[in-house]
């Protein structure tokens, strides 16, 4: 099994007619993802490489029965597109857009939570999700992932996710699902959401969690793991050497005063029984050991 998306997930692409939307949308389709429609206001009736384009999400959903949307639109339009997806009947939204204003994100997040409790948003500013061999929504290269499990991956960082996938796949260790939750301050889906889903998924036997500096999501996840998680978790947190007060690339990756340091996160995770590793390679090796001992 996989979490959130699988081979039956029907996906629309909001912004399919744009350069990025076309590139990633077709790439995801080539991977085997059921990309069933595109949405671009004003371009309804056209198609992109055989994928029908609709004027609105609602029309696309009604025509195709899609439940997921891949939102590939510029920051300026991203919030409206996400809310249109929820309003249109989509229950799983992936937003890869980087650079959405923080206030737009805050409003969008709370609008979703308050008005569309059944909707999950992944991102914004995330690499997306891949359930290897089944479904890939986002910008991850499908060829670095290996189907069949038993490892689930959840990560705040894109490249480190790829690195993790790569290292596991090279050792012949597959993944159930790999979720990139993104590096923004208000992620729609957080570590706990993914950990809970992996804990509930019978095919996932171990989880790799990749955190970074900033915020307190890793600490909250540690608390949740201590109380609820029965499966082994291997973790790496980036940014041990990051200076306070500077955004390390991601809007969310900032140490404010004494809060959000990598050390505090690693300590909390270690106290929750997580295998805390000091670099991605070590984390990959630790996971190999754990899987081989299963």
């Amino acid at each position, binding site marked *: 099994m996989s979490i959130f998306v699988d081979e039956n997930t029907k996906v629309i692409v909001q912004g399919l007619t744009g350069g990025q939307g076309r590139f990633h949308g077709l790439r995801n389709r080539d991977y085997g993802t059921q990309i069933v429609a595109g949405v671009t206001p004003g371009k309804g009736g056209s198609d992109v490489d055989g994928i029908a384009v609709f004027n609105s999400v609602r029309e696309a959903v009604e025509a195709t029965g899609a439940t997921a949307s891949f939102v590939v639109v510029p920051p300026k339009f991203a919030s409206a597109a996400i809310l249109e997806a929820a309003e249109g009947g989509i229950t799983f939204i992936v937003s890869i857009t980087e650079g959405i*204003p*923080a206030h737009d994100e805050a409003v969008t997040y*709370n*609008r979703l939570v308050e008005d569309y409790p059944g909707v999950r948003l992944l991102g914004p500013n995330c690499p997306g999700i891949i359930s290897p061999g089944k479904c890939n929504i986002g910008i991850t290269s499908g060829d670095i992932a290996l189907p069949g499990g038993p490892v689930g991956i959840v990560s705040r960082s*894109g490249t480190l996710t790829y690195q993790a996938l790569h290292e596991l796949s090279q050792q012949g260790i597959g993944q159930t699902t790999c979720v990139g939750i993104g590096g923004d301050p*208000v992620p729609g889906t957080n570590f706990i959401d993914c950990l809970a889903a992996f804990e509930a998924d019978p095919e996932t036997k171990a989880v790799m969690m990749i955190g970074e500096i900033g915020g307190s999501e890793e600490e909250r996840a540690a608390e949740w793991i201590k109380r609820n998680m029965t499966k082994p978790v291997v973790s*790496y947190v980036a940014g041990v050497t990051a200076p306070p007060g*500077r955004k390390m690339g991601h809007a969310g990756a900032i140490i404010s005063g004494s809060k959000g340091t990598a050390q505090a996160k690693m300590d909390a995770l270690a106290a929750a029984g997580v295998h805390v590793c000091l670099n991605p390679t070590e984390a990959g090796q630790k996971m190999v050991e754990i899987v081989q001992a299963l």
Partner: protein
Amino acid sequence: MDLFEYQGKQYFSRFGIAVSPGDVADTVEAAVAVAERVGFPVVVKAQVKVGGRGKAGGVKLANDIDEVRLHAGNILGLDIKGHVVRRLWIERSSDIAKEYYASFTLDRPHKTHLGMLSAQGGVEIEVVAEENPDAIAFLSIDPVRGLDLGSARRWVHEAELDEVAREQVAELLVKLYDCYTTGDCDLAEINPLILTPDGTVHALDAKVTLDENASFRHPEWEEYRATETEDPREKMAKEKGLNYIGLDGSVGIIANGAGLAMSTLDVVNQVGGSAANFLDIGGGANADVMAAALEVINSDPKVKVIFVNIFGGITRVDEVAKGVLEALARVTINAPIVLRLDGTNAVEGRAILAPHLNDRLITEPTMLDAARRAVSLANA
């Protein structure tokens, strides 16, 4: 983007938040002109984006033109913790009966906005939070619902502000929230927010951080950007669309992705080195971007070795390899380069570099190996 005090006050004014009458000046004569216009006594304040300017002699009271001349002359050009004062803010001096604190920022754990209000202003709010947290009235604001005057009135009550100030502060808080949200601030802080002996309230300082992601809807921010006194390399990197932060070490870092870049810093540190910078070339970088990144690093005299750490995803490794060669052809790179190339088109990328490898252009199979090699070269 952090604003100077004077920019913050000007930004506040756009939203109807009262500040002391004053203006900016970058010469002694301009300072005198402002002082005469706003009326004596005035306060002459150094405009620097660093705390502790008062202790450093950057804030002075002037009772007449001679004193303005004296203080403005002394403060202009002053070095405050490495920040040279190029501008002054001259404002009418205010009598202070009480100092409050007010701010809005994002409450990440709760995914709401967090308002902080205290009758104990004028000191660092972190100190108040530590020593007497009950003295801060926290307000969690649902971004969907916002802050209305009724809630602001409850809030000033709860904060036990002086009664004469409450209604004025409540109205000001609604404006400050408007500034924070429609003005796209990451932080909008007034410390101190003062009550004068005649019973009126206004902002005596302004700390504003703008969310650069919202630049597209704020053409008026252009003027703030022009005055950003940045590290010259950070400026150069920004112009080229690179995410660069200068650090103190000797290993220049180039990586694709913020997480991988952070991780590269960590690994260099683990094997005994220290990074000269953080540099994320972003997703989908091409040869041009890679070349630009090498040029930025190359301009840093601290750099003894350059560690290029690429895991190809959208970024294609063959493009990275081409960029490296391009940069080498275009400029003289002063330091040896150690590369670790993996992911999309890594085989092609390595093949492109293979004929050019030598003791100044080295590839290593893993991140850890590459870090070790880079650090040993840096320490040689």
